[in-house]
């Protein structure tokens, strides 16, 4: 087993501990919001409610992510966008999409989705060859469009519910199920990526540098593709809306 994978497992363990300890700290001593009972709607219930027993921890993590984003991640992304022209950035994003397409194959197989497995495999074959190691994406115009399948969805297809809502450090909105899914996908991706790195470089010290370099680049490229910025939605209920939409979005994705 290689070092990067070990570090990831340690991180995942720390994360689990944080979840468990953070969950205990939520206080329930607030008076209730005043109800606006609509005369036309006596059966009024909470229209936007999600299972979020660790809300105190989650909100703290949301705030941490805001700080990380604002003072580190977004400035790095801006520098990345300033230094590299759009066409190069698209190439990099395509390259990583192709590299980690293997996760889609893996999850499609586990979900027993033959069509999806063929689709993802075809994408790898065409994009790696005609697409010059994945820098271009000729598979999409050929009709093999990208379909994101992660292990969280696989668990969902197997009938596992989302469990409590969970805000992950840096990665943001998730659930216990999807958090575990993210860990499994990361493990699969890491095994695959180290295998690919090994094929390219045989010297051990170079290999680690290359691995960490491209892991960093991968996350920067990924963040660059997401325009969301924390606390810029103009709503005091941003946390609630993001949670609600995330959970619904996952429901819909699993149904697809």
């Amino acid at each position: 087993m290689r070092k990067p994978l070990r570090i990831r497992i340690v991180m995942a363990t720390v994360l689990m501990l944080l979840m468990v300890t953070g969950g205990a700290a939520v206080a329930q001593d607030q008076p209730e919001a005043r109800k606006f009972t609509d005369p036309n709607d006596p059966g009024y219930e909470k229209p936007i409610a999600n299972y979020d027993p660790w809300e105190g921890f989650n909100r703290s993590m949301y705030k941490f992510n805001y700080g990380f984003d604002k003072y580190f991640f977004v400035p790095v992304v801006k520098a990345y966008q300033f230094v590299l022209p759009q066409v190069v950035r698209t190439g990099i994003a395509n390259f990583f999409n192709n590299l980690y397409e293997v996760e889609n194959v893996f999850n499609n197989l586990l979900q027993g989705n033959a069509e999806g497995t063929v689709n993802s495999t075809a994408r790898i074959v065409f994009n790696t060859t005609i697409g010059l190691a994945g820098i271009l994406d000729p598979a999409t115009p050929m009709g093999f469009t990208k379909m994101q399948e992660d292990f969280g969805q696989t668990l969902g297809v197997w009938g596992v519910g989302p469990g409590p809502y969970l805000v992950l450090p840096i990665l943001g909105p998730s659930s216990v199920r999807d958090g575990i899914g993210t860990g499994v996908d990361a493990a699969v991706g890491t095994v695959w990526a180290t295998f690919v790195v090994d094929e390219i470089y045989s010297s051990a010290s170079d290999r680690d540098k290359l691995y960490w370099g491209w892991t960093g680049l991968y996350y920067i490229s990924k963040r660059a593709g997401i325009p969301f910025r924390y606390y810029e939605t103009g709503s005091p209920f941003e946390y609630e809306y993001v949670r609600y939409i995330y959970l619904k979005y996952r429901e819909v994705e699993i149904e697809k």
Partner: protein
Amino acid sequence: MKRLSLMVLWLLLFPAAVVHASATTGAYDYPFVDPYTATVIGTPTIYRPNLPEEVPVKDYSLTVFEDRQIPDVFWYSEGLKFSLVPQKERAPLIFVIAGTGASYQSPKVKGLQRAFYQAGFSIISISSPTHMNFIVNASTTKVPGHIIYDSEDLYRVMELAYQKVADRVDVSEFYLTGYSLGASQAAFLTRLDEERQVFNFKKVLMINPAVSLFNSVNIIDQMLANTVGDEPGAFNSYLGRVIRAFATAFDRSEPLDFNEDFLYRVYKKRMPTNAALESLIGFSFRISSSNMIFTSDVMNGYGLLVPPGTQLRQTTPLTDYLAASLRISFLDYYNRYFYPFYHAQTPTLTSEQMQREMSLQSIAPYLRQTEKIAMMTNEDDLILAPGEIDFLQDTFGERATIWPTGGHCGNMEQKDVVAFMVNYFKE
């Protein structure tokens, strides 16, 4: 490209709803004759002028009141944010005031920035006094919607904003514009500027103003009420449907903001019926008003939603407040909070007087004689009550430009409309 293909799909699916406007009017080329569609969809790319994607914009933050306490629950909103788009050379500067609930960086404001920057103007963009960040940092009464006080707050912010960037931009003279509620405020701001004479605006353009705020908010309330219906549980099930529709159409590569623009994007992808479009406009405003009302209630400790004495902290769950505030119509806000609050300050003020004060009619003589103000709206603007378009035509006379279609602000990015706005300030 994606936008274009969606448009084509729309045209194929709803040929009856779409008539090429050029067939009837000649010059003005805007595709939607239905005001609801226009308001929701806005202007498809092919009907827009060629403008730069990006303009050099810089964001700033202001401390408006030194002694303002920012509640813990709004910790992230400290400092009033605005933006400057400067020209390198000496140029006129246009202040842009955003519409109801919208921020200085909303898509409509950005559209104006692109057009005005290309035409050689510098721009300072300010959030609406109904936007959370403005209420928290810059509202004197903290009860938004009062057009006289809100305009005074805006004027103070504009002064501070200009002071802050004065050494970064070379200004020859000052202009002012705003859309929707921001347009109505622009009229009051111009009148205020005559007294204070800080900017001495040379030209002012009102874009789709509300004439009577009270009438407009009632119309908007009805849009939601009409569709959602009266049955028990109707609102909840409506909400569930909308959020589900959103989740289905959600695309991580698009920006997320919880104001009117957010839901418009959803339904762009869902091709809804006219009734759904109408309710969606109402619901989008409802999201904006719930943000506004909760923020105001917390800032004032008024107790409309949050029981007095409640300590809202950074990690306090707010779901119950969100649920409760989504149930408050504009009329509820007016009756339960807005009017009682101002009535307590001026006990002689009747509700009728108040409603009249919150209107352009109250300053009609000023608007009639003030040559530097021009007004632009659409014949089918949804927020105007019967007779209000005639009032606008009559009051502004030759300074009124009324487009045949476009709904409420739907045509702001249309080629001819952009050319008109730019030319107005250039001439």
